């Protein structure tokens, strides 16, 4: 459940890697770019030199960066990764809907809705208090063991369900932050027009709330896109599991590198997009307020 961005700002790079910079003269810009480039090269050079000249490097290269092994294992990993992608897409859609519902229930006011509100709070507290991996193990091994009639027993099904439940609790809180960021006067003016609480939420509060939390939601995307791999503990043959199996039979870990590359291929663009979107949104707001 981390949401860190995998790429750090190395300073002076293009604005894709950091906050927008104040416009400056072309000459100064070129100079800054040159300095950024040079310092990056020196940094990368030092790291590479330290790694590649270490005594154990030849052995590590053989175990982790073996080209022949890579070619051999890549198709399996890719097939597993495709499953990761599918799991991610299905889970994300359900999470966005379920979490919104929970957040809306939690935002209802008035004593009549107390039981509903309480249920939402209890659900969120309980689920957020359990590590995702534990929830996956509990549902994945526990529910099939009950042998309930008419209930699916697949590891994939329950692993995904555990992820959806866990992420829904977190995402509900993201939505709730958004709902609370919409000024009270909006709710009041919607109610004054005769809209019910539900209508006010649906037509007035939630559309504004979602806009306010899109960056946080995108962050959740990146996080979930990686966390789907956790269902490997149930034996689901997704990318990391495939790499595991390969490593177990060959004592070669190149499969992990292949899986890491595939995950990066998807998560880095989403993380960059999130930053870009956040900056654009901020600039828009600033231009309106001036």
């Amino acid at each position, binding site marked *: 459940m981390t949401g860190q961005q995998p790429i750090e700002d190395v300073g002076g790079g293009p604005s894709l890697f950091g906050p927008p910079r104040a416009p400056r003269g072309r000459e100064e810009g070129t100079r800054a770019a040159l300095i950024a480039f040079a310092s990056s090269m020196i940094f990368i050079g030092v790291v590479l030199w330290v790694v590649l000249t270490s005594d154990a490097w030849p052995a590590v290269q053989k175990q982790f960066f073996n080209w022949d092994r890579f070619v051999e294992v890549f198709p399996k990993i890719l097939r597993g990764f495709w499953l990761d992608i599918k799991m991610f897409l299905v889970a994300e859609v359900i999470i966005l809907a379920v979490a919104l519902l929970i957040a809306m229930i939690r935002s209802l006011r008035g004593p009549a809705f107390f039981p509903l509100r309480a249920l939402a709070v209890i659900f969120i507290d309980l689920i957020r208090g359990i590590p995702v991996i534990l929830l996956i193990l509990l549902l994945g091994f526990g529910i099939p063991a009950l042998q309930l009639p008419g209930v699916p027993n697949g590891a994939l099904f329950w692993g995904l369900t555990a992820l959806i439940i866990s992420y829904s609790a977190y995402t509900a809180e993201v939505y709730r932050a958004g709902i609370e960021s919409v000024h009270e006067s909006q709710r009041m003016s919607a109610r*004054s*027009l*005769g*809209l019910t609480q539900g*209508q006010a939420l649906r*037509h007035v509060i939630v*559309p504004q709330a979602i806009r306010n939390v899109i960056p946080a939601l995108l962050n959740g995307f990146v996080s979930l896109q990686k966390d789907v791999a956790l269902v490997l503990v149930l034996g689901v043959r997704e990318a990391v599991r495939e790499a595991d199996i390969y490593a177990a039979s060959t004592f070669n870990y190149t499969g992990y590198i292949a899986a890491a590359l595939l995950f990066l291929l998807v998560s880095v663009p989403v993380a960059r997009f999130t930053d870009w979107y956040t900056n654009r949104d901020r600039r828009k707001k600033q231009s309106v307020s001036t």
Partner: protein
Amino acid sequence: MTRSKLELQGVSKAFEGKAVLREVDLTVQPHEVVCLIGSSGSGKSTMLKCVNLLVPIDAGTILLDGADITASGVNANQVREEMGIVFQAFNLFPHMTVLDNITLSPRKVHGVSKADAQDKARELLESFGLSDKTDEYPDRLSGGEQQRVAVIRALATEPELMLFDEVTSALDPELVAEVLNVIRGLKDDGMTMVIATHEMGFARDVADQVCFLDQGRILEHGPPGQIFSSPSEARTEQFLQRIIEAGRL
């Protein structure tokens, strides 16, 4: 005697132990325009929000067309359908166009078809000189335009009572007149209105009855001529004196 449009009987309200309204009595006849004046914090806004049931009252009764709207079991949404309120800060919905802002309530609350609601909205925009703003978003409009759209939005549900809560206080001075003229137009159409305002010239001009609020009480009320020229309470006189010194009357 005709039935009053709105009646407040002994209405009290306290926020966290601090009394904001103390046993307020007020009767508003159909087609009457009542202006509430008094310094900030005297309870004008709270009074309007109580009438709109946005703020629950602690004691007293509010009657709308003779029916008790503060009784338990009353559907607040239905009551609100009968009246419109306009706020100081416009409170337009920023994610909707002007047209959508106006048609939201008629469509979702009153069950008017989209086409009918839009026709009505366009008609209103036309008569308020805002036709060219129909498809704009609120942040593209001036304060005066936004407030006029807010008035139209409240009118679109065809209320019989309009409440105005210091609707010009957040406007640049040169934009105040366009909003006040809209309200004058409503008076000519016979709309019943309760207006909380700091615009004394306007109140004197438009009101049938002026109420001076002081610390949550209606200290005195009467026709504007009497309140503004010969108030009977010392507090009212003081208040008006300060207004005159500020050059606002």
